[in-house]
């Protein structure tokens, strides 16, 4: 880690007597150069880690971008160029993990989590208590009928006395 940082720091500082800032290789024609930059955005810089080789100012990142340029000039496909870097650094070299194999789980996990959340909400909404029915207003017929409850009948009888 310290070594990588020292490399980045030294490359960024470009101090006299230390590492020189290399000139970038000549760009290709506009269409192929655009492809080089697009591919570079998808590849991680080996010395600066969180930045793509297209965005990093580090000299080593420019060397990696030169490699992409060389492979594009050789007519390699995007997949062949990704494979070149993955062969050296593993899928760590890709700014976005592949949507296959174990990393497919990374892509599916949020969807799965959302599905579980929706299921929980749906399940809870099914169990919600029904809206309370409005209290029945006892009508005159109801008050005349003999109450079924013995206690209520006794209260009514007491009131009538």
């Amino acid at each position, binding site marked *: 880690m310290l070594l990588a940082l*020292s490399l980045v720091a030294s490359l960024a500082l470009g101090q006299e007597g230390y*590492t020189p800032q290399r000139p970038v290789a000549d760009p290709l024609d506009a269409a192929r150069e655009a492809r080089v930059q697009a591919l570079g955005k998808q590849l991680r810089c080996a010395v600066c880690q969180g930045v793509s080789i297209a965005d990093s100012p580090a000299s080593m990142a420019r060397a*990696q971008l030169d490699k992409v340029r060389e492979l594009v000039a050789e007519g390699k496909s995007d997949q062949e160029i990704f494979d070149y870097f993955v062969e050296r650094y593993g899928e760590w070299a890709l700014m976005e993990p592949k949507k296959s194999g174990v990393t497919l789980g990374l892509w599916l996990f949020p969807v799965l989590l959302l599905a579980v959340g929706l299921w929980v909400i749906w399940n809870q909404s099914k169990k919600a208590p029904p809206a309370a029915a409005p209290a029945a207003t006892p009508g005159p017929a109801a008050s005349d009928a003999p109450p079924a409850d013995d206690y209520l009948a006794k209260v009514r009888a007491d009131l009538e006395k």
Partner: protein
Amino acid sequence: MKKQLAVGSALAVIALVIYIMAKGFGNDPHAVPFLLSGKPAPNFTIKRLDNDATVSLADFKGKPIVINFWATWCGPCQTEHPVLDWAAKKYANQAVFLGIVFEDNEQNTKRFLQQNGWSFVQLFDPKSTVAVDYGVSGVPETYFIDRNGIINHKVAAPFVDPREFVAHMQTILQ
């Protein structure tokens, strides 16, 4: 039954999260993976620093090879200098030692070598193409290549203890 399923699912998710976190915390997040171990060492042809002759990896077919990537501005590279110098002399008849200077310039390197001296061949990688081919991610890095031209492993740290270097050499001298 439904309640058991819900509890089971929740526990499974919690276990998965704990597993992922444990795996993540168990690794150095800044370590750069290296997958060329067990694969053929990429060939190269680059210039020597002491004369204009070029050297190819293929020139040393059948011999164990140690390649040290370094630069003059790298402090740890200077620290390991005596160990590599000692090892190159000790194993002179058993293995080939190559130094590859990258992310540097020739004048700096020649001046450094004149001041410090080196006991093995030093090469110059002006555009870091060899370093990229070898998956270098910092300096110094030392690659141990067996006599069949297969990269046994690399060490992405400076050598301070000669005994440590001997242990690494054993892996390619067998």
